[in-house]
C-alpha cells in the first residue's frame, strides 16, 4: 500500500465513523421526537372538521422538532390557527402557497412576527387524493438554527396524520348526510304513497282499478278518484316529467290540486285549465311539466267526459272497437293557458278505458318500444272488466323477454261500464 492510499483509507474510515455517529444521533433524536409526540397524539381527535381539531397534531410537531411557532391552514373555509395565537400575519403566506400544489415542503423566510423579529417557516401541504386541502407549518426565528432533514421528516409524517383526520371526518359527514337524505326520501315516499287511493269506489255499473309503481323510492306518477257533488265519479292519472324528489313533489301537489278541483265539481276541461293556471309559474321556475288525463262519468247513465293534456293516448274500447283518445292540449306547465277539448261518450255495457303512463309504452323490448300496440295486444278480445284487463297487461309486462326492473314509474288505470 502506498502512503497516498493509506492516507485515503484513514480519511474514509474517519468519515465512516463520523457518519455512524451522526446516524446514531439522528436515531436517538428521532426516538426522542416520537416519544414526545405520543402524549399529544393520544389526545388528538381521530376526525378533523376544523383547524382546532388539528391543533394537537400541530402542538406535537412543535414539541418534537423544538420549533417556536406553528400554523395550520385549511383551504376550504380559509381557516387558520397559529401557535402562539396570531404570531404572524398569515396573509403573507398566500403568495408562496402556489408551490404547495407540488406536494413538496416549502421554506419561507423573513416573515415578520408580532414581537418584531424576522422568522422563517417550513410548510408541508395536507394532501387528500393528490389534492392540497391545506398546510401545516412550523416556524423558527431567523437567527436560530435551520430546519433539518429530520424536522422535515417529522412534519411530513404528521401532516399525513392530519390528512387522515380530515378524510375520516369527511367520511362521517358524508355518511350522516346520506342517512339524512335517505330519511327524507322515506318520508317523501310515505307521503306519496298516502295520496294514492287504497280503495276504489263500489258502484253497481262501474269498475275502476289501478296499479301504481314508482321506479325508485319516489316517482312522478300518481292517480286518484273522487265523487263529485253531482254524483259523478271523477278519476285521473298524472305523470310529472322526471324522477326522484322534484318529480314526486310535483306529483303530490298536482294530485292535490286536481282532486280539489274535481271535488268542487269542475268538469275535466275546467279542472285541467284551472290547475294549469296554478302550476304554470312554479313549474316554470322548477323546469317541470306534467301530463294528465281526467275522466268524469255518470255511474247511472254511463255519460262520460274525457280530457287529456299531453298524456299518453287513452285506449278506449267502445262497442268492441278500440280507438285512441289523444291529447288535445300540451302538458300542464308548458303554456300559461290551455284549452283542452273534451271527448264525450255514452258508455254501454262492456265498454272499457285504459289510461297509462309512459313507463308502460316506453318499455324497451327486443323490437323497440312496447308502445300502445303492446298494451293493446296484451288485452284479450273479449275480456270483461277493467280489473282483468289491467291484470292481463301487468302479466304481459312481466313475461316480456329480458324484462327486469321497471326503468320508469308505471301507473295504469282502468275503467269499465258493466
Amino acid at each position, binding site marked *: 500500500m502506498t502512503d497516498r492510499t493509506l492516507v485515503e483509507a484513514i480519511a474514509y474510515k474517519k468519515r465512516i465513523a463520523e457518519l455512524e455517529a451522526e446516524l446514531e444521533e439522528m436515531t436517538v433524536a428521532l426516538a426522542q421526537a416520537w416519544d414526545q409526540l405520543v402524549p399529544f397524539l393520544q389526545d388528538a381527535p381521530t376526525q378533523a372538521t376544523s383547524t382546532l381539531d388539528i391543533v394537537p397534531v400541530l402542538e406535537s410537531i412543535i414539541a418534537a422538532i423544538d420549533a417556536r411557532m406553528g400554523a395550520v391552514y385549511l383551504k376550504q373555509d380559509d381557516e387558520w390557527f397559529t401557535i402562539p395565537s396570531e404570531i404572524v400575519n398569515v396573509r403573507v403566506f398566500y403568495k408562496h402557497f402556489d408551490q404547495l400544489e407540488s406536494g413538496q415542503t416549502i421554506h419561507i423566510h423573513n416573515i415578520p412576527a408580532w414581537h418584531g423579529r424576522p422568522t422563517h417557516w417550513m410548510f408541508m401541504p395536507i394532501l387528500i387524493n393528490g389534492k392540497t386541502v391545506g398546510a401545516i407549518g412550523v416556524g423558527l426565528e431567523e437567527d436560530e438554527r435551520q430546519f433539518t432533514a429530520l424536522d422535515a421528516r417529522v412534519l411530513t409524517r404528521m401532516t399525513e396524520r392530519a390528512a387522515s383526520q380530515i378524510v375520516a371526518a369527511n367520511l362521517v359527514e358524508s355518511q350522516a348526510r346520506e342517512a339524512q337524505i335517505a330519511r327524507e326520501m322515506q318520508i317523501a315516499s310515505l307521503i306519496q304513497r298516502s295520496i294514492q287511493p287504497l280503495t276504489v269506489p263500489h258502484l253497481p255499473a262501474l269498475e275502476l282499478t289501478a296499479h301504481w309503481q314508482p321506479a325508485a323510492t319516489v316517482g312522478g306518477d300518481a292517480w286518484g278518484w273522487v265523487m263529485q257533488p253531482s254524483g259523478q265519479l271523477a278519476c285521473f292519472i298524472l*305523470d310529472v*316529467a*322526471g*324522477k326522484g324528489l322534484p318529480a314526486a313533489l310535483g306529483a303530490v301537489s298536482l294530485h292535490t290540486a286536481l282532486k280539489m278541483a274535481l271535488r268542487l265539481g269542475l268538469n275535466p276541461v275546467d279542472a285541467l285549465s284551472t290547475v294549469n293556471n296554478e302550476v304554470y309559474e312554479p313549474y*316554470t321556475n322548477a*323546469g*317541470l*311539466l306534467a*301530463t294528465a288525463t281526467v275522466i268524469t262519468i255518470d255511474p247511472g247513465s254511463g255519460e262520460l267526459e274525457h280530457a287529456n*293534456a*299531453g*298524456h*299518453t*293516448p287513452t285506449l278506449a274500447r267502445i262497442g268492441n272497437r278500440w280507438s285512441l283518445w*289523444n*291529447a*288535445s*292540449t*300540451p*302538458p300542464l*306547465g*308548458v*303554456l300559461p293557458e290551455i284549452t283542452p277539448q273534451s271527448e264525450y261518450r255514452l258508455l254501454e255495457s262492456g265498454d272499457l278505458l285504459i289510461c297509462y303512463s*309512459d313507463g308502460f309504452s*316506453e318499455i324497451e323490448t327486443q323490437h323497440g318500444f312496447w308502445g300502445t300496440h303492446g298494451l293493446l295486444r296484451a288485452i284479450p278480445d273479449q275480456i270483461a272488466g277493467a280489473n282483468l284487463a289491467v291484470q292481463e297487461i301487468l302479466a304481459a309486462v312481466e313475461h316480456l323477454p329480458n324484462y327486469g326492473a321497471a326503468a*320508469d314509474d308505471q301507473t295504469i288505470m282502468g275503467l269499465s261500464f258493466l
Partner: protein
Amino acid sequence: MELQTKQLTPEAILIHINGRFDAAVVEQVKRLWIENEEVHFVITDLSETTFIDSIGLATLVSGLKTTRQRGGELILLKPTEPVKVILELTRMNIVFKIAPTLEEAQAFLKPL
C-alpha cells in the same frame, strides 16, 4: 348520445343531438343556455335524435321559456319520425316552431 354545438351568431347556437335525448344528456344541454346569458336563440337539431322522453321534452320547454324571456326563441330542426310522433302525441308540436331545414330555422332568428 353525442352532443355537438355550434355558435351561429353571438346570440344564436345550434345544438345537434345524436341518439337519445333523455335524462343522461339534459343537464349538459341545459347548461348551454343557463350558463351563457348571451344565448337568445337555440336551434335544436333533432335530425339524428332517435328518442326523446318526458325529461327531454321538459328540457326543451325550459329552453323555450328561457330564450323567450330573453326576447329570443328555441326552434326545433328536422325532428326524426319517432320524435315527431312524440311531439304530436303530447301536442308539443303546437308549442314549438319546427323547421324542416337550417335555412328555415335561421329565418326565425331576428335582430335583437
